[in-house]
């Protein structure tokens, strides 16, 4: 989909980075990990005396990108590869560092990314153990000619890190694609009910381990690297904001993230509380 750029992008002008920021609005996407990261960023900034407003749960990438472009929010947690695919649809970078550099270049003026975190949450394409056994699936290429039903987000259907790439790189086509959600409960439910056999999840989702789902290998690298990175409006990029967020990201690890997300999704704790807990255990000096 394209049309998003026509929205309010004019407002994200080339205003210079301010020396001091008193207030910042942190947004997030409509899944737990994004909300958790937004909480962590927000609480860390608040600890530095910045007034933080929250706009959690805005929606999918296309939706929250529109929001940060028109200034509805100033900061969102992003993922390098996915964001790059959003800003540069033709990009095929599979190396984490190169992808990060490419993203920096591809950004719309007025938006910037800070340091990327070692923590990453990769896209992964999964099937149930039963399905894997039945069709002896190991890698994405094995899906070819199996006439399975896939399901997932609306975006997955049109991205190169999705059906497009599967078809181009592996020649895989599905009998049908059911539009559900981005690694959310619908997709998981549909998968476990065998209404769909293939879906797109994220590596930090505990459900993969809990349900014994099988992640298919991606030798052709259609799925991009996805290190966590804050996407911020230049007009809110003051030094102390940069320092704080970079410090947070440096401490995050993939494993820690996986645990924290599990506490939210399975333990039903609030993102707010889990973030506070993590920050207290990992004080930022």
């Amino acid at each position, binding site marked *: 989909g394209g049309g998003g750029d*026509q*929205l*309010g992008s004019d407002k994200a002008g080339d205003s210079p980075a301010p020396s001091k920021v008193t207030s910042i609005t942190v*947004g997030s996407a*409509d*899944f*737990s990990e994004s909300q958790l990261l937004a909480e962590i960023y927000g609480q860390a900034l608040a600890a530095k005396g910045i007034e933080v407003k929250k*706009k*959690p*749960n*805005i*929606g999918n990438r296309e*939706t*929250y990108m*529109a*929001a940060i472009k*028109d*200034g*509805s*929010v100033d900061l969102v947690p992003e993922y390098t590869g996915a964001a790059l695919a959003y800003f540069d649809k033709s990009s095929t970078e599979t190396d984490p560092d190169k992808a990060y550099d490419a993203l920096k270049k591809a950004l719309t003026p007025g938006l910037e990314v800070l340091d990327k975190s070692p923590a990453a949450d990769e896209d992964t394409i999964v099937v149930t153990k039963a399905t894997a056994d039945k069709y002896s699936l190991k890698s994405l290429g094995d899906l070819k000619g199996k006439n399975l039903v896939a399901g997932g987000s609306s975006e997955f259907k049109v991205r190169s890190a999705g059906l497009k790439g599967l078809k181009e790189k592996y020649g895989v086509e599905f009998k049908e694609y059911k539009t559900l*959600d981005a690694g*959310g*409960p619908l997709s*998981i*439910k549909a998968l476990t009910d065998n209404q769909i056999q293939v879906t797109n999840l994220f590596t930090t989702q505990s459900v993969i381990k809990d349900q014994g789902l099988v992640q298919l290998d991606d030798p052709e690298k259609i799925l991009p690297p996805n290190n966590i990175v804050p996407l911020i409006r230049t007009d809110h990029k003051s030094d102390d904001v940069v320092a704080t967020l970079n410090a947070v990201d440096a401490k995050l690890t993939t494993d820690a993230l996986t645990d924290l997300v599990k506490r*939210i*999704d399975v333990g*039903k*704790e*609030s993102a*707010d*509380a889990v973030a506070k807990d993590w920050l207290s255990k990992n004080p930022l000096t």
Partner: protein
Amino acid sequence: MTWIGDNLGLIWEQLREHLYLAIVPVILGLIIAVPLGYVATRYAWLANPLIAFGGVLYSLPSIALFIVIPAVLGTKVLSTVNIIVALTIYTVSLLIRNVIDGLRSVPPDVRQSAIAVGYGALHRVIAVDLPIAVPVIFTGLRVVTVANISMVSVGAVIGIGGLGELFTLGFQKDFLTPVVVGVVLSLALALIADLILVTLQRVLTPWARVATPVAEVA
């Protein structure tokens, strides 16, 4: 249940936003629908097209309207204005019919007397027609208020939905509690709003709830 205790702040925040998003359009809608309805009773040929057009507007899916509006108005995508404008449109499109019906419900002999005692046109509308139309207008007002309160939640799909955000929040986690809390609070809000409107209507129309005629006193 502990979830509720842990998230009281969030719930309260969403409740306030929900109320704001639902009520402001009702007020705006009323302010727009009344003069519009009056015009439609003055120029009778306008009434049916207006009511029909209202029906069409009302059948536009709310999600679509919520997203179309920033594109049309140039408002920010997360601005509450989008929801308010959309719901105002719904309010007007529903209320217009009741305003017209209400103004038409003024008994002809009452209207005749009002003209004959020497009310000017505008004065008559304000002092006689509108007060008498109140019960019918309020019937519509109650329906739209309740409908708005229920519809605000849909805004959650684009990130501004008051209690609706509890729905998406819970739903993502396959977690019933927030969804139920959202539904219950939304329901409660609607019922309370309805109760307030009924009370308001009773206060405004003491004449409409009086007893049946008493026996002839010779």
